[in-house]
């Protein structure tokens, strides 16, 4: 296939059928925006999970009336661990005060006695500690005599993992759906273009054009449609991200301590290349049946 010639003819085809292609590209861009938005959600959930997972906290609840020597020994052990950044001892009255400050249950809780709240050690782990390592530290701490319970927030992370898994499945399903839409829409667009240019194909075939020569421009047109749709979707998402990330960021930072991130470079490349590739496949498949002249 003469690529230069195919490009020239594809450009002519795009020019002649521009209305048809604009409609197709716009429809496909909407599909790509849905996929991109889901991927953006997954990327951000993933980033937040990684961040939370790596900025680990462990709460060690102490037994009522725990021996001061045992608590001191526990403190020494914790300070000796390289993964521990800070240890804060919270007394029952400090815990009560903190609860009364933060709780908003609409009832007068000032009568609550301090001994309702157990004394605890709030452990802040150094940045980058994995969730597995955090769990391992928690299980070791649970063996100390002064310790009543250890909260490593594993269940919470498990739920987050489930949420992430669900989001990823949604992204995969959407990707498949978008793939199907792209193949169907581009296939039909090219089919319409082929029907309109049937005489051209017939003339070329009668002059001795190979199937590759005839197919070439249509495949390029399909490829362009797929790429343009994906690019349009990426640009729309980028604009949305630039407009919204600042107000969303401040809220999110206050709530979760993480910030909104845009799609990664490889995801963007995969979207654009994938769009072009699916477009090419869709048009190659649809033009195939018109080549028997």
């Amino acid at each position, binding site marked *: 296939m*003469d690529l230069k*010639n195919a490009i020239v003819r594809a450009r002519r085809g795009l020019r*002649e059928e521009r209305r048809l292609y604009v409609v197709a590209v716009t429809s496909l861009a909407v599909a790509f925006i849905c996929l991109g938005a889901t991927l953006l959600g997954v990327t951000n959930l993933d980033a937040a999970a990684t961040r939370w997972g790596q900025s680990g906290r462990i709460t060690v609840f102490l037994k009522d009336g725990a021996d001061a020597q045992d608590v001191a020994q526990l403190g020494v052990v914790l300070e000796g661990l390289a993964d521990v950044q800070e240890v804060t001892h919270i007394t029952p009255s400090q815990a009560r005060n903190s609860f009364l400050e933060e709780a908003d249950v609409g009832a007068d809780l000032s009568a609550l006695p301090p001994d309702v709240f157990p004394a605890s050690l709030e452990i802040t782990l150094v940045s980058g500690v994995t969730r597995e390592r955090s769990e391992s530290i928690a299980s070791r701490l649970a063996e100390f005599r002064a310790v009543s319970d250890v909260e490593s927030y594993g269940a919470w992370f498990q739920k987050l993992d489930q949420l992430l898994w669900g989001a990823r499945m949604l992204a995969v399903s959407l990707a498949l759906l978008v793939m199907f839409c792209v193949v169907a829409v581009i296939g039909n667009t090219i089919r319409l273009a082929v029907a309109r240019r049937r*005489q*051209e194909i*017939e*003339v*070329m*075939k*009668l*002059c*001795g*054009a*190979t199937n590759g*020569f005839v197919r070439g421009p249509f495949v390029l047109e399909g490829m362009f449609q797929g790429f343009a749709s994906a690019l349009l979707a990426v640009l729309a998402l980028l604009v949305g991200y630039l407009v919204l990330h600042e107000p969303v960021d401040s809220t999110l930072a206050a709530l979760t301590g993480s910030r909104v991130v845009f799609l990664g470079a490889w995801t963007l490349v995969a979207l654009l290349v994938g769009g072009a590739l699916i477009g090419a496949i869709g048009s190659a498949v649809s033009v195939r049946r018109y080549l028997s*002249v």
Partner: protein
Amino acid sequence: MQETKVVRPFPFFRAGARASQPQLSKPILVLEDVYKFFRPDQPTLRGVDLKVERGEFVFITGPSGAGKSTLLKLVYRELTVDEGRVLFCGRDICRLTDKSIPFLRRNLGVVFQDFRIIDHWTVYENVAVALEIVSMPKRLIRSRVAEALERVGLAGRGPELITNLSGGEQQRVAVARAIVPEPALILADEPTGNLDPHLAIDILTLFEEINATGTTVLFATHDHSLISKRDHRLISIDEGRVLESQQGLKHWPGSGIHTMTG
């Protein structure tokens, strides 16, 4: 069970390949006992034997539905024979693979009654397409197209849109497209069918001029007024059978062309 022999593309049908001396000495087209059925009980062509030498101008005539177009379609392989052989330059084109057919067609020029030119293209683009498919350099395409347009009397009309041309001029564009790759054989399927008698003679003369340069021409028409004006070899197809005269209508054996063409 008989094994089907697959014939690989002949080098002769490859782009840029030239016919060898032995190939040049053979008849350009031979049909041997060719049958073509569209309905099992009624063959469109039955036992057609035909030999066309290089440089000949041959009229193919017969009433509508006699099988003229079918015969031409067998030569440019839009159709395949059901029985018999079609030899082009000594090669059996019935056994060409699908991939080889484009290379066969590059050795042929085909002109149709309905012109089959692209309305929204310019004259130049319509002619150049026959050379673009063989990836010829642009500069060469320009000079070859200009030459072809000059031969058909459309010199300098390259930039014009087809819609601005008359019927006769549109057919000239189709002829230019057929001759621009310098094919060995031109197949004209009722090329004057849509033209008035005066323009029909012009187009016929154009084909004769092309034939005078050595190109073989098969000219299918049912217009006996056109045939009667020339003494070219005449092949008549009626009910799928071939009758022929070597020197035109005047020398037609028996009852004459008028009864034959209705």
